[in-house]
């Protein structure tokens, strides 16, 4: 058992290197290696289902033990990391085929696997050094993944890495502060130190660590890197970033809120509002603001991936909001939403990626009418948006419902209202997404578009099935979550396979009933529909145009500025743009950074790869030998 945690951690790294080498042999060797190793990681991960394992020392650094650990909560995040990575890699095989330069591709797969490994490391970490080390590896490798997307993505990556560095420094300072007090960075020791130190110290530590996680989780106002990075990254990378990478921030928050700082501690050192410690209450408000503002911004987007990116900010807001409630139901809802968001957001990014793959554009106003050409992708996207909008019976609904109930129980009504607003707003932007891409008039230049190849469809199907299963049987996920939360001192919540009985919640939920009644009424309505005379299919040009004839030349498709009138309503809110202030800073940093960084970042991928490999090797060597050196 001991070995296997390390094996699990090592598999993607080894796989990454082998993939890179395999790429020199043949591209199929590389592809098969990449898929195999991510599959292997998933397989190894699944062994840890329902396992709790504390403290597996795998090295030491600065006299602090390096520990790997696992429990059901980490398993949940491992599941997200490994499964989405596998699907992304499978999707990449066809999606990245157009890339001519095989070096680019080799390093691409290697970086994918490295990011996966780094995230596994973060989740498995049992001490802050391991955590921080893999955190950094994740930041840098994902930066390289983002810049694969071309010229614009360089800027986006810059923004991302600069903000990541700021977050990392904050984190580093916090870790150094703890280390200076405790001389050990293992979680239980840290928790002990925090509980014994002065409240000011503890609050500072939490704030500093929190900044790092907030940057990664893209909670407003530290979100500005996300829209650019997630939209400019290559289409298979976006699901990894949006679905998984930002969850690491959420995981980090979970660790500091409930791992390093017990609930009592928080209550003791700071005042409470609505029985929530004030710091958590502020976090809740930031999360709620993220939900609302990012929803508004998503509504106004004209670019499919940017829209999804903003929606990610909004959805991660739910996760953080749930995590910060501090009640069992809320935290469980937050964790469950992290899983659900990973599933449906990856699904959406893959579906949009499939559209980009076939049409070459992600500009919503250039698309339209693709439902007849790409029906499978359409179904995938529709399932994704229904889940995202939180409409029963799909998975997004259940976790949102839990968060709402938790807020309602705590009478945090204003947060609840904001969460609700974000969710109704989601109807707007998800409909815009599906309408602009798949409905409306098919443009002439997309006459010959086909559905995507089977290798790209499989990941989408897997995610569609997962969306439905976790929606109808939320108990499957709750098994893991409730068990894991017990270890962090949460009271268990009553649940069953299909939902929640009335008791620990203010109302009851049984999704299977909703789903089955919906299905039955749908079938009844359909049969009733079929009783009447058949419909004849007409072309999209045989359309009402006030008596005039619709011709292909006519621009008869409403897509640009879909919610322009709504935009007029919310305009006053965005008079002061946070982003503009940030952009100014980033530009300044760029001017400064360009001079020095160009020396190091030559723009040559081979060089980058060698950097990564060297860094990883040195880190590994330092850690493995660390105990002996220091």
């Amino acid at each position, binding site marked *: 058992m001991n070995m296997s945690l390390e094996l699990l951690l090592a598999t993607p790294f080894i796989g990454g290197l082998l993939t890179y080498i395999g790429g020199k042999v043949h591209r199929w060797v590389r592809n098969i290696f990449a898929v195999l190793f991510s599959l292997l990681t998933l397989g190894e991960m699944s062994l840890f289902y329902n396992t709790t394992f504390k403290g597996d020392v795998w090295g030491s650094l600065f006299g602090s033990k390096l520990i790997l650990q696992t429990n059901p909560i980490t398993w949940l995040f491992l599941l997200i990391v490994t499964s989405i990575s596998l699907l992304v890699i499978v999707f990449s095989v066809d999606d990245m085929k157009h890339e001519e330069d095989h070096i680019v591709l080799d390093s691409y797969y290697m970086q994918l696997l490295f990011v996966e490994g780094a995230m596994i490391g973060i989740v498995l970490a049992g001490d802050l050094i391991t955590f921080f080390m893999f955190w950094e590896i994740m930041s840098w490798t994902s930066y390289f993944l983002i810049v694969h997307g071309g010229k614009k993505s360089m800027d986006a990556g810059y923004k991302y890495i600069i903000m990541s560095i700021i977050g990392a420094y904050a984190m580093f300072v916090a870790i150094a502060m703890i280390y200076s007090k405790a001389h050990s960075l293992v979680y239980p020791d840290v928790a002990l130190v925090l509980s014994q130190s002065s409240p000011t110290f503890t609050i500072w530590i939490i704030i500093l660590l929190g900044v790092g996680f907030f940057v990664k989780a893209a909670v407003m106002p530290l979100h500005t890197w996300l829209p650019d990075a997630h939209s400019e990254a290559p289409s298979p990378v976006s699901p990894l970033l949006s679905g998984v990478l930002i969850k690491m921030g959420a995981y980090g928050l979970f660790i500091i809120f409930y791992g390093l700082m017990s609930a009592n501690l928080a209550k003791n050192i700071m005042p409470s509002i609505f029985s929530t410690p004030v710091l958590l209450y502020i976090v809740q408000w930031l999360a709620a603001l993220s939900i609302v503002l990012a929803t508004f911004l998503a509504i106004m987007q004209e670019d499919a991936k940017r829209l999804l990116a903003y929606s990610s900010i909004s959805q991660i807001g739910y996760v953080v909001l749930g995590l910060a409630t501090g009640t069992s139901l809320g935290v469980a809802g937050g964790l469950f939403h992290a899983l659900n968001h990973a599933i449906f957001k990856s699904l959406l990014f893959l579906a949009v990626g499939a559209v980009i793959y076939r049409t070459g554009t992600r500009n919503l106003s250039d698309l339209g009418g693709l*439902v007849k050409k790409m029906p499978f992708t359409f179904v995938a996207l*529709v399932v994704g948006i*229904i889940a995202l*909008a939180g*409409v*029963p019976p799909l998975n997004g*609904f259940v976790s949102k*419902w839990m968060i709402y*109930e938790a807020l*309602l129980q705590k*009478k945090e*009504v204003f947060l*609840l*209202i904001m969460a*609700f*607003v974000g969710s*109704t*707003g989601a*109807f*707007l932007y998800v*409909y815009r997404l*599906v*309408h602009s891409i798949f*409905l*409306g*008039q*098919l443009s002439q230049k997309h006459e010959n578009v086909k559905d995507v190849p089977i290798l790209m469809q499989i990941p989408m199907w897997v995610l569609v099935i997962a969306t439905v299963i976790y929606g109808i049987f939320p108990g499957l996920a709750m098994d893991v979550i409730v068990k894991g939360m017990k270890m962090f001192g949460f009271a268990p919540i009553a649940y069953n396979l299909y*939902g929640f009985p*009335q008791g620990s919640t*203010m*109302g*009851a*939920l*049984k*999704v299977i*009933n*909703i789903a089955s*009644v*919906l299905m039955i*009424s*749908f079938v009844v*309505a359909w049969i009733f*529909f079929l009783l*009447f*005379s058949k*419909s*004849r*299919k007409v072309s*999209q040009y*045989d*359309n*009402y*145009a006030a008596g005039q004839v619709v011709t292909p030349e006519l621009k*008869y498709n*409403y897509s640009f500025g*879909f*919610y322009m*009138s*709504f935009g007029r*309503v919310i305009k006053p809110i965005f008079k002061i743009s946070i982003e503009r202030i940030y952009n100014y800073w980033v530009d300044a940093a760029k001017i400064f950074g360009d001079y020095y960084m160009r020396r190091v970042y030559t723009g040559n991928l081979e060089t980058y790869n060698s950097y990564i490999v060297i860094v990883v090797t040195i880190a590994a060597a330092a850690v493995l030998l660390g105990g002996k050196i220091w």
Partner: protein
Amino acid sequence: MVKMILIAIGAPLVAFAIGLSFMMIKRKIVARIQRRYGPTIIQPIYDVLKLLVKEDNISHGVIFSLGPIIAIAGSILAVFFIPMAGFSMLTGSGDLIALLYIMAIGSLGMALGAGDSANPNASIGISRALTLMFGYDLPLVIIVISVALQYHTTNLSDIVAAQANGNWTLWTLPLSAIVGFVVTYGALGEHPFDIVTAPHEVATGPMVEYGGKHLGFLMISHAFHIYIEIALFVDLFLGGASNILIFYLKMFAVFFIMIMFDEVLPRFKIDDAVRFYWKWPTVVALISLIIVLVK
């Protein structure tokens, strides 16, 4: 068991009948307000049946045809979650919060279908519909929260039960009830919120390409829709009812007052409608919510 099945079949039928009767009455009352004689009372039935027996139907694709079907399926689903005169099939399977989302299923299905008609008028109509939905959802959510906090439950059956003996929410939370009434206008698309289908602007909006049996289905789903919105209002604020006649009378009273106002108001523009909902109804609902919180 037999009773369960009977209710399962009967509830949607009763809901449809009530909704349809309101459609009939509405046309007659509106005609009288407009100094006309008005159509025969069962005119909507003729209209729906005529549409259903059209010999020719057109479709722009599968999604286009699915739109009206999902609209009806979603409406039937919502019917089960609203306690109807003592019967409440599924209130134990989904509470008020779930109901808010369930009520959206039909509209979203309809929106998908209308989008597939490849007509900008339909697209504008849906854009307006969703925007309007966003507009009235804010006050609606606030009043739903205040009612839930008032009775410490989100289960609609319990809320109805708590209002027994004339202890209606209307008396305890009059401000919320007023906002609920205003929200119902938007939810039903009555004047001045008939922005979605405004014929002079977008040529009936989402329905622009629907004809024949598709349109008939949309009319049926509208009947359900009327029932759902008003039944929800009655359950939340007028204490539901223990028998169907009283339930109907309460619904009728609400509907009647609604028509009286709606025929003398011109139409809002969509952004003004959202601004309106986010201004007064929201403020009033928040006041009511704060009253509940303080109590």
